[in-house]
């Protein structure tokens, strides 16, 4: 507010005859004297806040960027893990084939050895060898190692997929943060408008309207984004999709 105007008003009031209107005018001018410093303080606070807001907004954007970078790193590791698991599964399949072939060969050897013996009574060396071979085959049959390894690999693959799915939280959190940043920037626009009114005595700045439009365009987010199991919302969506499909 212009101090010279207050001073002029004060001088003018002193020239008036001392009656009620002059007293009121003097009171009013006294009030202005008290209000102006307050308004200056408010203006300074607004200016200071408006300078800090872009920093807050930038910090939020940085948080989003950093979490995205970290999430992508995790996804890279998961992809590498999944690739190694798939490789192990291929080797395991080969091992199964080799094991089965070994079993079949051993059985044939045992059969031939038994067939080659002729005397009843004491075991011949061929029979003993055949018994050993059969024991070997039984050992392979009773070993649960391969199925166990298959199950471990399958579960590990499933777990890494579940971790990847859980990382959707980063996208959803990013939208929530973007929503907060938008609110902060909207406050900044309002503060700038308020500052302009202080400076220009109430005239609006066309740049304010452009700033709002820009805000709407730059932030692409869902204000209601949330990381909660989506079964109910998905069921509701499915119902609507079904209705539209039936209409066709």
């Amino acid at each position: 507010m212009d101090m010279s105007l207050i001073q002029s008003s004060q001088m003018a009031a002193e020239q008036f005859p001392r009656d009620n209107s002059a007293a009121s005018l003097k009171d009013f001018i006294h009030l202005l004297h008290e209000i102006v410093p307050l308004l200056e303080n408010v203006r300074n606070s607004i200016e200071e806040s408006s300078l800090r807001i872009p920093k807050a907004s930038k910090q939020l954007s940085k948080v989003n960027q950093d979490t995205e970078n970290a999430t992508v790193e995790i996804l890279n590791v998961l992809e590498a893990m999944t690739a190694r698991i798939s490789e192990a599964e291929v080797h395991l399949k080969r091992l199964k084939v080799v094991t089965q072939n070994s079993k079949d060969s051993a059985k044939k050897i045992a059969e031939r050895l038994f067939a080659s013996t002729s005397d009843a009574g004491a075991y011949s060396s061929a029979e003993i060898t055949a018994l050993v071979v059969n024991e070997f085959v039984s050992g392979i049959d009773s070993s649960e190692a391969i199925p166990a390894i298959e199950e471990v690999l399958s579960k590990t693959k499933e777990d890494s997929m579940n971790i990847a799915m859980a990382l959707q939280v980063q996208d959803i959190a990013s939208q929530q943060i973007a929503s907060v940043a938008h609110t902060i920037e909207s406050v900044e626009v309002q503060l700038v408008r308020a500052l302009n009114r202080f400076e220009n005595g109430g005239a609006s700045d066309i740049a304010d309207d452009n700033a709002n439009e820009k805000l709407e365009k730059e932030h692409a987010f869902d204000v209601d984004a949330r990381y909660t199991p989506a079964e109910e919302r998905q069921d509701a969506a499915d119902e609507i999709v079904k209705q539209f499909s039936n209409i066709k």
Partner: protein
Amino acid sequence: MAKILVVDDSLTMRRIVVNALKTQGFDNVIEASDGKDAVAKILSEGAQFVITDWNMPEMNGLELAKWLRSNPQFENIPILMITTRGNKDDVIEAMKARVNNYIVKPFTPQGLKEKIDQIMKSVELKAA
């Protein structure tokens, strides 16, 4: 094999969707970061299936769907929307834009597979 275009402004989400597609045997996948990028990619590289987010800068998923449906070359291309928007009005708006199916985030690999299968089946039925 059908080429799938995955559209999302979030790099994380694009990676997750692409990985989920790969585990289901879909290896021919291209990506776009928003609707405008998607239009450029589909015109230059082509695609037979579009999976798109809704909230994106430049051109959002709904605008992309409307553009595809208004273009004779792509008017029948299958479109699956994957978005955090789960309100009834949003789904209706998407269906009015002739999106084929709709997934609410966070999604599951099984859910994605089901929706893709549903769309493929309906497209085959229409072609038959």
